[in-house]
């Protein structure tokens, strides 16, 4: 009798809704019934609304069942799910589920498919192809490929990755560094976590290629402490990478070295800002640095340093393996390639959607996401984390790419889209943006440190009906000071959610009107 392979994700999101218990129950039931099964703990396919998503390999195809509870497991065995038997939780072939089939899986092509810590599985699915090719190329050619691909920083800033790499390559120094920013603190985002937990070797490979491209021999992955599973998976993968000769001295017998370590953040949102992260890596308070000098010339320990987001670096192996043109073929305008959109908040089908730039917000929120979880109308979405704009429902025809969003007072950020229903109180959301900034400001510059506190106070006065018109004007004036006067994006972009809330939902700031009496067409319930 041959063994049947069953996949149950190890991803922290899947585990958060019972994947460990489901996996244990499957092994228990199989044992009790004398059936030979091998349970593989894969990453998540990204259809988080279906987690725990169990897959069974039948005739070389992966059949999906989900969301599976512990109590479903005996019934699944009774229904013969190991042979693809009919069951209410059966979803057919995983790759034919429309949510998955309609995506452009490039960076996340392996995530959820392979065992994240099985290097053979990784290599069998195209892993190390990019690295092997890069080892045959000269450094300039690697940088040129990345530049030609059109890849831009996926952390949110959208700076052309290839230009950053060329700058570091051209800098003269005895030591250079590759620093991966895995301090994914934006609410509504989880793509970095999913990739590190589901396909860690891709990030390692991308960082190694970056090292070859610029002449850096040491890399650090800076992971936030809120991600213990990502940390553990990355550490284990790095250990395996060293054992296989994919990392360390003379990688793949090339004579070239690349060393990699994990460093852990300590609960400071600001450390997702690149210079603050470098300070933290150096063992200091995570206070932002004034630029110039840019990190590409004077970064970690004063040396030329690439600071890239997880997804920027993870895109590189494919770009090198398949060529810049293949990646560049995706997307629109100056937004090339694919973006890992993350559908979050009050959403029926939340999860990760990797799609070429240019897809409309409507298609993401309603097409993929299915609207709200509780069935109420969508009132707004916040795009790009706590510093991103609130976009009202009548603007969902906008395309999700860097330029279109920026041209409409919003930003793509790290690609998180948080859905709110019609009960959301936008004045509270605006207040929270400033409250969050007050809590997380590094304190270095005054507009951010003091402005955020004064902003909370001003909104409180507006909500208390204390000279609301004058205070609203004052609030917008303060937003201008913060935008223009802050040292980094924390203070500089906190006004974005505040202004968008005021602009699109002015009725929510008029508290002399009793709740529910607003002129908005949507029913609103205030807290």
């Amino acid at each position, binding site marked *: 009798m041959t063994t049947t392979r069953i996949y149950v994700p190890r991803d922290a999101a899947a585990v958060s809704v019972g994947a460990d218990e489901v996996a244990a129950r499957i092994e228990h039931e199989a044992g009790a019934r004398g059936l030979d099964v091998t349970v593989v703990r894969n990453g998540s396919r990204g259809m988080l609304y279906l987690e725990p998503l169990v897959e069974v390999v039948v005739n070389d195809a992966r059949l999906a069942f989900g969301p599976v509870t512990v109590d479903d497991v005996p019934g699944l065995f009774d229904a013969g799910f190991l042979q693809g038997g009919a069951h209410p939780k059966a979803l057919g072939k995983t790759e034919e589920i429309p949510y998955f089939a309609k995506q452009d899986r490039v960076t996340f092509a392996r995530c959820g498919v392979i065992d994240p810590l099985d290097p053979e599985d990784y290599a069998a699915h195209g892993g190390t192809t990019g690295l092997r090719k890069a080892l045959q190329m000269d450094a300039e050619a690697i940088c040129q490929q990345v530049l030609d691909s059109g890849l831009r920083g996926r952390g949110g800033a959208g700076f052309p990755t290839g230009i950053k790499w060329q700058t570091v390559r051209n800098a003269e120094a005895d030591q250079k560094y590759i620093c991966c920013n895995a301090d994914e603190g934006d*609410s509504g985002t989880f793509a970095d976590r999913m990739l590190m937990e589901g396909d860690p070797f891709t990030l390692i490979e991308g960082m190694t290629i970056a090292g070859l491209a610029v002449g850096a021999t040491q890399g650090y992955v800076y992971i936030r402490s809120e991600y213990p599973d990502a940390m553990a998976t990355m550490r284990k993968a790095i250990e395996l990478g060293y054992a296989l000769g994919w990392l360390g001295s003379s990688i793949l017998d090339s004579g070239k070295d690349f060393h990699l370590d994990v460093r*852990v953040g300590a609960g400071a949102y600001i450390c997702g800002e690149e210079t603050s992260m470098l300070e933290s890596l150096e063992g200091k308070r995570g206070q932002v640095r004034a630029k110039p000098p840019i990190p590409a010339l004077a970064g970690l320990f004063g040396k030329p340093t690439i600071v890239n987001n997880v997804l920027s670096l993870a895109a590189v192996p494919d770009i090198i393996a398949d060529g810049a043109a293949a990646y560049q073929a995706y997307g629109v305008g100056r937004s090339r390639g694919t973006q890992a959109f993350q559908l979050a908040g009050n959403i029926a089908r939340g999860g990760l959607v990797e799609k070429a730039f240019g897809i409309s917000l409507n298609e993401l929120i309603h097409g993929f996401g299915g609207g709200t979880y509780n069935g109420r109308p969508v009132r707004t979405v916040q795009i790009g984390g*706590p510093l991103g704009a609130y976009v009202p429902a009548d603007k969902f025809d906008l395309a999700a790419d860097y330029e279109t969003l920026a041209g409409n007072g919003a930003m793509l950020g790290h690609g998180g889209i948080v859905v709110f229903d019609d009960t959301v109180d936008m004045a509270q959301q605006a207040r929270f943006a400033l409250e969050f900034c007050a809590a997380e400001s590094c304190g270095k510059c005054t507009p951010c440190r003091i402005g955020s506190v004064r902003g909370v106070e001003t909104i409180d006065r507006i909500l208390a009906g204390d000279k609301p018109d004058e205070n609203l004007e004052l609030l917008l004036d303060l937003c201008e000071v913060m935008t223009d006067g802050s040292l980094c994006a924390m203070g500089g972009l906190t006004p974005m959610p505040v202004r968008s809330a005021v602009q699109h939902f002015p009725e929510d700031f008029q508290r002399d009107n009793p709740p529910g009496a607003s002129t908005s067409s949507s029913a609103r319930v205030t807290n």
Partner: protein
Amino acid sequence: MQTTSGQWDSKRAHEIITEHAGMPGALIPMLHALQHAFGYIDKSAVTPIAAALNLSNADVHGVITFYHDFRDAPGGKHQLQVCGAEACQACGCRELMTHATEKLGVQPGETTPDGMFTLNTVYCLGNCALSPAISIDGRMYGKVDANRFDQLIDTCKAS
């Protein structure tokens, strides 16, 4: 990552400080290691850390107090974090936090009188498609309503 709190041991602390002193950018990993070992970073550690890294006491104190994760006093047996960020706000985390404070009888940042739970707000656990999310001792739970919260608390108490 959270661990159970323990007894401060100056000798062991000194060993941890020495083990980490040589690495580049040693301070944060050193502080994590100390907190992992003892559940907090005793104020008595500031001077030996400063000496090992050739820093001033003020530098070390400044770093410890900058980061939310580091504590200078023992926390509860279980570290409970309720996400308070936007995706969870869209799914009722404000109400969940109110429920948590009522159930445990403490405010965010406080430890229950029996020393069982330290309650904190966290800004994003990265479980934003399965909100509201909480974390107990580093393990994440999604789609947590008041009932599930109570069950998880009761399970911790029974363990």
